[in-house]
């Protein structure tokens, strides 16, 4: 039977020696995690929670100090498999400027397939496809430094897509973008999962981006402390706040209204659902008054 998990970690520990020679700093303290193929998983956590460090284990950029990381069954420690692991699990980083290699858009998108040694016609095909997917085909001959932050980030995504990865890890891809650029990237991420069968791991601290996820993982101090459906995780707003995070604006609003005595559900995550819930509650209240 084929392995249903694209990513699996077993008691993953990561620590590094500190400059002053004191106790090694523990960044990950035993993470057990399975990510199923084709799902959209969001990993949340405040700065220093270890979420980026965890992500960097998924494509063997970092290797565990203890425990194991398996990518489609392959151990990341095996250096003969590293290239295949990196092809399977692509990674998009925060700063688009620092991940673009070439001075022409299409040359940059071609970088990964060139590294993988494909023949020129195959590279051409992959580059064109990837640029179409992110809607940047018309810009293929532009210089990246003249594009906007959001456009650059789309180029970076295309550069990863050209490897035909099974999974893409997004490490705070919208942190440096304006609202419109952010919206665009979120739309592309959704499209990748829905129409291209790519497993998506999104690391973020924008709760709104995580609402659509199939599963939310909350990290704090190198450990997974919450793991479940968005409805389950976001509703537990007290636990979220303990880790230094806040729920999505919708849930926060509903939570405060409840404290003011309104009878509202907490699991109306999207803006539409939230508005509907409030409308419903107000209608009930006014009809009660009329009675």
């Amino acid at each position, binding site marked *: 039977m084929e392995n249903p998990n694209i990513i699996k970690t077993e008691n993953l520990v990561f620590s590094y020696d500190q400059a002053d020679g004191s106790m090694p700093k523990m960044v990950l303290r035993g993470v057990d995690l399975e990510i199923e193929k084709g799902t959209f998983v969001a990993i949340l956590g405040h700065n220093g929670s270890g979420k980026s460090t965890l992500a*960097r284990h998924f*494509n063997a*950029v970092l290797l565990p100090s203890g425990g194991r990381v398996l990518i489609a069954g392959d151990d990341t420690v095996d250096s003969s498999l590293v*290239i295949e692991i*990196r*092809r399977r699990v*692509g*990674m998009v*980083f925060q*700063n688009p*400027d*620092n*991940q*673009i*290699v*070439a*001075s*022409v858009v*299409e*040359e940059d998108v*071609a*970088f*990964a*397939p*060139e*590294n*993988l*040694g*494909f*023949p*020129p016609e195959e*590279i*051409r095909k992959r*580059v064109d496809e990837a640029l179409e997917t992110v809607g940047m085909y018309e810009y293929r001959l532009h*210089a*990246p*430094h003249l594009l906007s932050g959001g456009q650059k980030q789309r180029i*970076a995504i295309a*550069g*990863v897509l050209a*490897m035909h990865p099974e999974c893409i890890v997004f490490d705070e891809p919208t942190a440096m973008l304006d609202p419109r650029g952010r919206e665009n990237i979120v739309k592309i991420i959704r499209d990748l999962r829905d129409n291209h069968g790519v497993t998506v791991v999104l690391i973020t601290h924008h709760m709104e981006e995580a609402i659509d996820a199939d599963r939310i993982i909350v990290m704090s101090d190198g450990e997974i402390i919450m793991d479940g459906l968005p409805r389950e995780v976001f509703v537990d707003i007290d636990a979220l706040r303990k880790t230094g995070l806040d729920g999505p604006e919708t849930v926060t609003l509903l939570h405060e209204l409840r404290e003011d005595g309104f009878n509202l559900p907490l699991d109306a995550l999207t803006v539409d659902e939230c508005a509907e819930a409030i409308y419903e509650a107000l209608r009930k209240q006014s009809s009660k008054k009329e009675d």
Partner: protein
Amino acid sequence: MLKNITLGQYFPGDTVVHRLDPRVKLVLTLVYIVALFTAQGVVGYALMFTVLVTCFALSRIPVKTVLRGVRPILIIIIFTAVLNIFFTQGTVVFEFWIISVTREGLYAAAFMVTRLFMLITGTFLLTYTTSPIALTDGLELLLNPLKKIHLPIHELAMMMSIALRFIPTLIEETGKIMQAQKARGADFESGGLIKRARAILPLIIPLFISAFRRADELAIAMESRCYHGGEGRTRMRVLKTHFRDYMALFGGAIILAAVIMLRRVLP
């Protein structure tokens, strides 16, 4: 101030010169330099000048651009001229106090200046008509045989293309740091040379820190995209030599031969 950096400036176009294989252009530039230093006498120089003008005419690069490119090295040209005029022994044509100008000196200066001028403009033609990527690709392929003796040709070419890629990014960053420092009262425009050089220091340090951070992130991003050196790497764009490339090489050979012949015939 930072906008007029014309390092390796490329003027996109679609002329014969632009379309030539970058490898051929690199070789021809070398042939041109050799020919220029072999050329002797008025006829030899006239031939080289005709070649230069023809190439520029074919590439449709405006004369103004060419002259602007020469400006930064004007001082060197003038310095060479002065040295040659005043310090060459021979028949004196003009004397003043301890300075004497000789006929040989005037000739030597004229030839040196023409040679320098033609050298600079000729090599600029290469960067004017070849995009930096094509240039690094061409260089890598030309130097490929040197990999046999373990010279890191691929790595050098990769470093060069990344450097080119980051020039605009770092210029932009320098502008931002400058504004940030100005907002806190830094003064980059007034004072003597030493004062200005000192004012640059708080600019250089943040720029270096940021460049190192960028390099670190870029390295991780490159590894994440399966970069593992030049081994087994293919290219999307493959350079193909056309008939025109062979013709151009043939032309280069003829000109070099002609210059050598002229040296023999007209000593």
